[in-house]
C-alpha cells in the first residue's frame, strides 16, 4: 500500500497520489453505502441542523441572551409570541438559552468524545503493536478502568477538580476510553497479522511507521464509529453532571438549564416549558449521534443488520 522509500521522491509523490485516490474512492464507497441507511441520514440531518444552530447562535440570539440584568421578560413566563418557549427564572428567553446552550453541550460532548477516543486509540494501538509486558500492563489498566463504575468515577473527578467545562470534559474523557482501547487493540492485532505489515517491517519500517501508516488508517473507520457513539453518551454525561450540580454554574448548557429548572421548583410548580425544551434537545442530539454511529458501524460491519 503506502510503503515509502526515502530515496525516490518522485515515486513517493506518485504513491501518495495513488493513496489519496484510493482513500477518496473508499470514502465515496462509504458514502454510497451510508446513504442507504435512512435512520443514519435522519441522524445526520438532525446533527447538521443543530450544528448550524450552534454555529450561528452569536448572530441569531447573541451572547446578550445570557444577561440577567438585561433580561427582557418576567420570571417563568409561559410560552407566548414574544417568548416561544417561555422564560426562565430570571426572565431570560428560554428559546435563546436553549440555542445558546447548544454551543456548550455540543462542544463538551465533542471534546470529551475526542479525548476519550484519543486515549482509547493510543492505548489500543500501542498495546496491540508492542505486545509483551507493555501490552499486558496497558490491558490490565484498561480492564481495571472497565470495572470502575463510570458515572461514579466521573462524579468523583468532577468533585475533586474545580467546577469548569474543562473538568467536565476531563471527567468524561478519562472514564469512557477503555471500550475503545479494547476494540482498537483487537483491530490492531488483526491488521498486524496481515502479510504486508511483515513486508513493511522487512523494508525497514519502524514502529512509528507501522503504527501511523498502516495500523492507524485501518482502525480509523472503527475510531470514527466509536467517536460518534461516544459523543452521544458524552452529551448525556455532561447533562448528568450538570444536573447533579457539578457543572460550571456561570455557563449556560442544557444540563445546567435542567438543574436551574429543578432548583427553581419548576417541576412541582407545573412550569413544564422550563423543563421540556432542554431535555428534548439533549435526547434529540444524543439520538442523532447514536443513529449516525449505528449507520457507520453497519456500513463497516453489515452483519449487524441495522434496520434500513
Amino acid at each position, binding site marked *: 500500500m503506502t510503503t515509502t522509500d526515502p530515496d525516490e521522491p518522485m515515486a513517493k509523490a506518485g504513491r501518495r497520489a495513488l493513496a489519496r485516490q484510493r482513500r477518496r474512492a473508499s470514502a465515496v464507497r462509504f458514502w454510497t453505502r451510508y446513504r442507504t441507511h435512512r435512520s443514519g441520514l435522519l441522524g445526520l440531518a438532525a446533527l447538521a441542523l443543530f450544528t448550524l444552530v450552534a454555529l450561528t447562535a452569536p448572530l441569531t440570539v447573541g451572547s446578550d441572551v445570557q444577561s440577567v440584568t438585561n433580561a427582557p421578560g418576567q420570571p417563568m413566563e409561559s410560552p407566548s409570541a414574544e417568548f416561544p418557549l417561555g422564560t426562565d*427564572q430570571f426572565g431570560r428567553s428560554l428559546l435563546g438559552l436553549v440555542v445558546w446552550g447548544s454551543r456548550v453541550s455540543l462542544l463538551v460532548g465533542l471534546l470529551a468524545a475526542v479525548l476519550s477516543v484519543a486515549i482509547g486509540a493510543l492505548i489500543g494501538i500501542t498495546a496491540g503493536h508492542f505486545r509483551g509486558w507493555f501490552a499486558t500492563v496497558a490491558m490490565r489498566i484498561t480492564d481495571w478502568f472497565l470495572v470502575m463504575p463510570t458515572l461514579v468515577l466521573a462524579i468523583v473527578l468532577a468533585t475533586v477538580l474545580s467546577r469548569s467545562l474543562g473538568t467536565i470534559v476531563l471527567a468524561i474523557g478519562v472514564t469512557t476510553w477503555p471500550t475503545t482501547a479494547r476494540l482498537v487493540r483487537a483491530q490492531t492485532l488483526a491488521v498486524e497479522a496481515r502479510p504486508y505489515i511483515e513486508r513493511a517491517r522487512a523494508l525497514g519500517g519502524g514502529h512509528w511507521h507501522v503504527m501511523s501508516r498502516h495500523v492507524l488508517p485501518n482502525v480509523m473507520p472503527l475510531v470514527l464509529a466509536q467517536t460518534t457513539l461516544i459523543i452521544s453518551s458524552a452529551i448525556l454525561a455532561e447533562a448528568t453532571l450538570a444536573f447533579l450540580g457539578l457543572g460550571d454554574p456561570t455557563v449556560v448548557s442544557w444540563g445546567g438549564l435542567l438543574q436551574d429548572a429543578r432548583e427553581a421548583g419548576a417541576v412541582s410548580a407545573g412550569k413544564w416549558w422550563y423543563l421540556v425544551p432542554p431535555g428534548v434537545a439533549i435526547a434529540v442530539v444524543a439520538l442523532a449521534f447514536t443513529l449516525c454511529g449505528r449507520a457507520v458501524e453497519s456500513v463497516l460491519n453489515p452483519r449487524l443488520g441495522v434496520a434500513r
Partner: protein
Amino acid sequence: MDRHDQHGTEGTVLRLLAAAGAALMLTAGLATPLDPAPRRAEAKDGEQVLTVAVAQSVDSLSPFLAARLVSTSVHRLMYEYLTNYDPKDNHAVPGLATEWEPSADKLTWTYTIRDDSKWSDGKQATAEDAAWTFNKMMTDEGAATAGGSFVANFEKVTAPSPTELVIELKKPQATMAALDVPIVPRHVWEKVDDFSEFNNDKSFPVVGNGPFILTDYKADSYVRLKSNKSFWRGAPKFDELVFKYYKDGDAAVAALRKGEVSFVSGLTPAQAAALKSRQDIAVNDAPGRRFYALAVNPGARARNGKKFGDGHESLLNQKVRRALFMAVDRRTVVDKVFQGHAVEGEGYIPPRFSAYFWKPADGQRIAYDPAGAARLLDEAGYRKNGDGRRVGKNGRPITYRVLCHATDPQDKAVGKYLQEWWGELGIGVSLDCRDNVSDPWLAGEYDLAFDGWSVNPDPDFVLSIHTCAALPATPKEIGATDNFICDEKYDELYDRQLAEYDAAKRADIVKQMESRLYDTGYMNVMAYPNAVEAYRTDQIASITKMPEAAGNIYGQDGYWSWWSAAPADGGGSSDGAGQTGVIIGIVAGVVVLAGLGAFFAVRRRATAEDRE
C-alpha cells in the same frame, strides 16, 4: 424467556425472578386503584398524624453531637431545655426552669427547676439531671461536641436540691436565659461509654420529657414521634408527628398537593406562587431568621498575629469595600432572585428581632450608586486600564474569587448579577462554587463569600463571630470567627453588652455594634430571606407561628408550632378531587391489568404454538 430452560437451571432461576417481578408490578398496579391518594393526616385507627416533609439528613440524634437544624429541632421536641422563648416576642419564658436569678456579683445564677416534669419512663426530671448534663459537657470532650460553647464560661454547676440548679461563671454572661442545651435523663445517659460515638438511635422509644417522644427513626426515611400525654404544658393535639424525607423539593411539594404530607418548608418562589392558588393549602410567607450577606475577606490572620490566606490586597481598602457595597443593587436581589420573598438588607440582625434590629440613618446608608462606586474606586487608586479593566497594585486586572455554595441556588443567581454589576465597574468575578466551602473559607483563600446565619432570639452568638477573640489562636487552628474580622471598637462594645444584664441597655449597645459593622463594609447584608412554607388547611386547622403575628413554622426557637398544631376535622381527601382520584385510579389500574393480561396472553399463545 421460556425456551432456554433446556440449557440449564439458570433459565429456571430467571423465570422465577421474572415471575417475582411481574407479581411485584401486579401488586403495585392493584395497589393503585385501591389507594389513589393515600390518606395521611386523617384518622388512622382514630389517631391523628401530622406529617412534615424534610430534606436535611439527621447527623446524630444524640444532643451532645447534633449540629444540624433538623436534629436540633427534633431535640427541642424530645427534651425540655431550661428556658424557652415566647412565641410572641422571643423573650425567655420558663422551660424546665420556672425562674432564674443572677447574684449581685453577676457570677452566680440560680435556677428553680419545676417539679411537674416527668421522664417518659415515669421518673421525675430534676435539677440533678441538668447538673449532670452540664458537667458532662464540661468534663468530657466527646460530650462537648455540639454545645461546648455554652459551657465554656462555666466555673461550676451543682444541684443543691432536686428543684435548685446553681451555675457559677468565670465572667459575667448576659445569655444565661438562652442556654439552648437539651437536658437529658441522667439515669439513662450514665450508661453511655463513649459520647463521641453514641448516636441515641438504637433503642426506642427514647426516654425524654419534651412534648413528643421519639419512637422510631430510619435514616433518610423518617423520624417518628408520638405525643407525650403527660407533658407539663399539656399534651400536643396531634397523636403522632412524622418527619418524612423528601430529598427533592419538588417531590415534597407534590406530596403536599396530594396530601401525603401536611407541611413543607423551603419553597421556591415558583412553588409558592403555584401553591397559592390552591384552596386547601395555606402558604406562609414569613419574615425569616436569616440574613443573607456578602462577606469580605479582610486579610485572614490568627490571634498570634500571623497572617495567612490570600485575600485580594485591594479589599483592605475601606473605599474599595464601600464601592463594592454601592455596586450591589439590593432591591434587585430581593425582587429578582428572591422574587419578593425577602426583605431588603440593612443592618446585621433581621427586623424580626425587633429589640435588636438596627438600620442606618439616611446619611450613613450606602445606597445603590454604580457611578459613585466608580468614582470611589478611582479615588482609591484602582483605575481602569486600556481594556476597561481595573488594575490592582500589582498591575494585574482585578478578578475577585467569590466563594459560593453549590447547593444554594441563590448564591449562583446573585453571582450572575455580581458578574454583570461589577463587570460594569471593570472588576472581574469568578464564582467558586463548591459543595463544601469550609476548606478555602477557613484557610482564608477567597476574596468574597456568600454568607448567612440564622439569628437566635439572643444575638450573642452571631455577634461573637466577628470579634478578635474568635480568630484562631494560630493559623493551624480553627477559630469561631466568621470571616476574620477583628475591630477594636467592635470588640469593646461586644464585651460591654455581654456584661450588661439590663435588657434595654444591652440592646442599645448591640445596635451600636451593628452600626460599626456596617461602616467597616466587611459585611454587606443584602437581604433577609423569608421563610416560605405551606401546609394543608384540611389537615392542620391551626398552628402557632413565631413571632405569632407573622412568623415561621419550621425551625422555630422552641416547640410551639408542632406542639400547638391542631388537626382539622373532616376527611381532607374525601372531597370531589378525591372522588376523581379514585375513579381515575381505578381506570389506571384496569389499564395496567389489561396490559399485563395482554402480555400473558401473548406468552400463552407463544407457548401453545410451541406445543405443536
